[in-house]
């Protein structure tokens, strides 16, 4: 099985590769269109800022490539947000794979425990759909670090609650995405990555 991690100007790419290696899988980190198109599975990770990242993707025509992919694609964190239609971060038009708009968390002063932005740490996921998840993962904790979120909609595949309910995961056709970091989410995250590899 050929697995490709899309290389672009984002942090955290090595972490995803490390997590795949722990599952005994080797991935290639590349921006080569031909290699990405021919891979069995494509991972689109990311830590960064939406508008500069979209500019980079457009400049390298990776935007057109990603939306045209037919094999299973997994977006992670910023990857999920860029797969939505629009992000408030830098008022950015995104890839439009998921029909969701990405908004910034607005802290609620005075409400203890849920007032801080970014949403950082371990939180539980519920309402699991899609073959990214198996039943026993319901209510399990995964690791999040983000200030922006995609709301709940028809593509929502997992829900998390922080200030508001938001999409912890999205799925539409061959496109999968998690707002959390499976590569940093311990055994649970490893299982989710494994599920993706087995799709």
């Amino acid at each position, binding site marked *: 099985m050929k697995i490709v991690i899309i290389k672009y100007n984002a*942090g955290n790419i*090595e*972490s995803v590769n*490390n*997590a795949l*290696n*722990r599952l005994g899988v080797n991935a290639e980190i590349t921006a080569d269109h031909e290699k990405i198109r021919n891979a069995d599975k494509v991972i689109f990770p990311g*830590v*960064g800022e939406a508008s500069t990242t979209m500019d980079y993707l457009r400049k390298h025509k990776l935007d057109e490539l990603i939306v045209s992919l037919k094999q299973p694609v997994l977006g992670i964190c910023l990857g999920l947000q860029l797969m939505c239609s629009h992000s408030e971060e830098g008022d950015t038009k995104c890839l439009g794979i998921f029909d969701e708009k990405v908004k910034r968390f607005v*802290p609620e002063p005075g409400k*203890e*425990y*849920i*007032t*801080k*932005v*970014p*949403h*950082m*740490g*371990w*939180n*539980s996921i519920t309402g699991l759909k899609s073959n990214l998840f198996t039943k026993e993962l319901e209510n399990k*904790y995964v*690791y999040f*670090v983000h200030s922006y979120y995609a709301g709940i909609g028809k593509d929502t595949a997992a829900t998390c*609650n*922080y200030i508001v309910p938001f999409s912890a995961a999205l799925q539409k056709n061959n496109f999968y995405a998690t707002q959390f*970091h499976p*590569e*940093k*989410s*311990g*055994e649970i*995250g*490893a299982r989710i990555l494994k599920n993706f590899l087995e799709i």
Partner: protein
Amino acid sequence: MLAKRIIPCLDIRNGQTVKGINFVDIKEVGDPVELGAKYAADGADELVFLDITATHEGRKTFVELVKRIAAHLNIPFTVGGGISELSDADKLLSAGADKISINSSAVRNPQLIDDLAKSFGSQFVVVAIDARGNENNHWTVTVNGGRIPTEKELFSWAKEAEDRGAGEILFTSMNHDGTKNGFANEQLSQLADSLKIPIIASGGAGTEEHFVDVFTKGKADAGLAASIFHYNEIPIPELKNYLREKGIVVR
């Protein structure tokens, strides 16, 4: 709901953990990678690796170690010690660290916080503050492992760090550190009320009850400790069960 975090801290010198450890199921007790993996398997939510190596050679060893940690560990980890410029942080980020912690260098050069946050994002920058309180409840920020007092005061410095872009504050009370008599809950609670970023409490952990207190009275987001975990005085799975029984949300 967002879970409260339990964070073991490991001191590293020349690539080895410093404190003696009594775990029977670990072959190489000095190996930070193996110890870190054990903590992760036990349910630690994050780890902090603090490099206390002074030499240049040792620093290179640490970067290599961070690479090995990143390859093996499946939970987030912070590295600290000796980070005084962007290039130090960049090396550690490239090696796979999720966050870096700065302490004395931020006190000497507060602009470093702005620069790091701008270059790598606030979520990458933990500002560690070691402070000592006097009988008038004035908390003086100290550097060099608590040895040198500075002009700065805890609450204003923490606020400044937040304003400059720190993503988290790691507050160690030098009055409580090593006492095992509980965390500095009064000061922690005051910090929680005045800051919008998460607070990691450090110094004073001795019992499971102390962690209940630090999350309720101290309003901390995370509790950090070293020796009670290294000597297995409080196994993490037991601590988590205890916290759960007391109604604290943990993973």
